[in-house]
């Protein structure tokens, strides 16, 4: 594994039910970059590499990321790249770039206007175009099937799912960025109507627009601008086959494999990208997280999940706990694809 010390030193985010602006989200990105510059004292000229994550399908057009670079102000030209994935994977590409020694700093950003279409139908276009998409199973329904398989197997029940939702929505009360918040009681949540049986609305991440940006830097560049940087101790990503019929939907082998490649001992906080309540239960098992680990103190994806930036936000929220001294070691996690198909796990620690 690579050995260059790299840390998260800046993080800014916006989440909202409906962004009243262009699908390119350029207007959202400009103030986020401003916050990152304020946190680090840097200007765009201090950034060695830029990398973003977004989706053309979400924006309903080709090359949706092209105008996003206008938010940077890329004159003179910059060293820049883009992944058609959650921006957490853009952070991975940026981290690689720093590991090659070509650059010392990077700004990573993601954006998505989920409200521009019917999100759960848009995401059905991720499925196999020959056999699955023509049936048009939407993502909420697929997650419902996954939840049902786990219930039938006795691995979890509706109460356990409601407990996840209640804790998340309660914690979200302290998160000014959360768009759904306010816990009540497990009983009250269970009395609410079904949405996609066995999922209730609070079991599903709300459709969220938003954007986020993270600054990472190597060694002394990180120490110069952050009192207690969140040092990245490992990054690991894997993907599973998409086929719902051949996967054990109660498991996520790619999440387990990602975690197995890392050292998760002594983790205090884990920010898990679980857009459905039962998926948090799957991820806790696959990552081997004990009851002593605080899960999603931000409220997690159930409180707000802007597409293509929801994973990156988990990394930022985990890093923030380290900056604040609330955590010594933390985990950030991102997922992509239907039913936890693809996963990326990042471990980080404070060192002072």
């Amino acid at each position, binding site marked *: 594994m690579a050995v260059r010390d790299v840390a998260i030193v800046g993080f800014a985010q916006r989440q909202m039910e409906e962004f009243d602006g262009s699908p390119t989200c350029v207007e959202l990105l400009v103030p986020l970059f401003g916050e990152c510059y304020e946190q680090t004292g840097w200007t765009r000229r201090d950034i060695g590499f830029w990398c973003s994550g977004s989706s*053309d399908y979400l924006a309903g057009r080709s*090359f949706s990321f092209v*105008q996003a670079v206008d938010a940077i102000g890329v004159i003179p*030209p910059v060293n820049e790249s883009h992944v058609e994935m959650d921006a957490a994977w853009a952070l991975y590409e940026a981290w*690689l770039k720093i590991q090659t020694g070509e650059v010392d700093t990077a700004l990573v950003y993601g954006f998505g206007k989920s409200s521009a279409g019917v999100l759960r139908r848009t995401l059905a*276009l*991720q499925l196999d175009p020959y056999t699955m998409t023509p049936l048009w199973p939407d993502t909420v329904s697929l997650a419902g099937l996954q939840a049902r398989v786990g219930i039938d197997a006795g691995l979890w029940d509706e109460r356990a799912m409601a407990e996840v939702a209640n804790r998340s929505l309660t914690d979200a009360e302290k998160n000014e960025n959360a768009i759904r918040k306010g816990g009540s009681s497990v009983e009250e949540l269970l009395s609410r109507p079904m949405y996609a049986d066995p999922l209730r609305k609070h079991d599903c991440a709300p459709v969220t627009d938003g954007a986020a940006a993270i600054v990472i830097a190597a060694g002394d560049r990180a120490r110069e601008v952050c009192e207690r940087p969140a040092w990245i101790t490992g990054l690991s990503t894997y993907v*599973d*086959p998409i086929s719902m019929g051949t996967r054990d939907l109660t498991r996520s082998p790619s999440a387990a*494999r990602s975690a197995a490649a890392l050292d998760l001992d002594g983790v205090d906080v884990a920010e898990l990208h679980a857009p459905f309540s039962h998926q948090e239960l799957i991820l806790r098992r696959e990552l081997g997280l004990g009851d002593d680990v605080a899960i999603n103190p931000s409220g997690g994806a159930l409180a707000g999940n802007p597409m293509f930036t929801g994973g990156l936000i988990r990394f930022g929220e985990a890093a923030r706990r380290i900056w604040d001294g609330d955590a010594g070691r933390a985990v950030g996690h991102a997922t992509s694809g239907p039913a936890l198909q693809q996963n990326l796990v990042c471990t980080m620690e404070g060192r002072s």
Partner: protein
Amino acid sequence: MGKQPAAVIGVGQTHHRAKREDVSIAGLCREAIDRALLDANLGFDDIDAIVVGKAPDLFEGVMMPELFLAEALGAAGKPLLRVHTAGSVGGSTAIVASSLVQAGVHRRVLTVAFEKQSESNAMWALSVPVPFNMPVHAGAGGYFAPHVRSYIRRSNAPTHVGAIVAAKDRQNALRNPYAHLRNPDTTVESVLASQMLWDPIRYDETCPSSDGACAVVIGDQAAAEASERPVAWIRATAMRTEPTFFAGKDHVNPRAGADAAKALWHAAGITDPLDEVDVAELYVPFSWFEPMWLENLGFAAPGQGWKLTESGETRLDGVLPVNPSGGVLCSNPIGASGLLRFAEAAMQVMGRAGEHQVPGVRTALGHAYGGGSQFFSMWVVATTPSH
């Protein structure tokens, strides 16, 4: 630890056609991958990670197709990344794959880029109207034609130079068994006689719309040294981005391209590109971009690039053969076109370019660009790891 050496140890590509109705999207990718693995004498078990590149998902109508392709690409149970940087994506994808090896994270990485353009109409997929933006209703040709006109005016180039490029590349393509367009009768005169589409770009000066894929296996030093056949060492890579529009933008000689080239030559230890580079695979979707990129890359002074083309110096037997494969003008699966340039450069270095092999190549350039001449990616590959 610093940057680890990396090399191309295998390349593969599909037969490029207007419609590859004989294969699915997965089958198209596998055709390239299987050839690349065979070329590298490796199997899927030897591959640590897969990097996928393609241009807009609207071209096939599948959102993030790498997710459904994961198993067919041999990526299930492995790391998978998906890059999209517009037309430069094939090049950027190779650079991301290189960085996985150069960062010391993986030993052997498979990268594949594809486009199955027959699934939709690429020209119109590029022209989705966007509120508050200048429409591009006539596709890429209409967008770039004014830049070509501007180049001709600024350089005082004779108006047949574009036809020279088109005739050369079509003749080169006859030596490339994978090329899409195979028109043995193409001459400068026939190009000049073809229909004017977007003045001054004639029909025969435009790229086709192709179905195709390209795959490249990149290995670390140990993997390269274990190869029984020649490899192409990755001497340097560079990427630069500028906006589509800004006051003072030079669409003919974009600063991002010039900056990327400058960084590339510096990293590769090249001071005189025309002297030190033996062959170049440039992203030339419209004929006139050959002289334009020759200037942008520093092979010729501003306004002088067309002289290299006109005097025949970019032919197979010239000082700097450009696009011996036939280039984008003969095969253009958009998402793969950049990786094809990078792969063809590597093939020349490895001595595996067959009938379009340039003799004695030691150093080669692969180049790609995208968007409104704003995204640039390029690499230099060579027979030895350092100069």
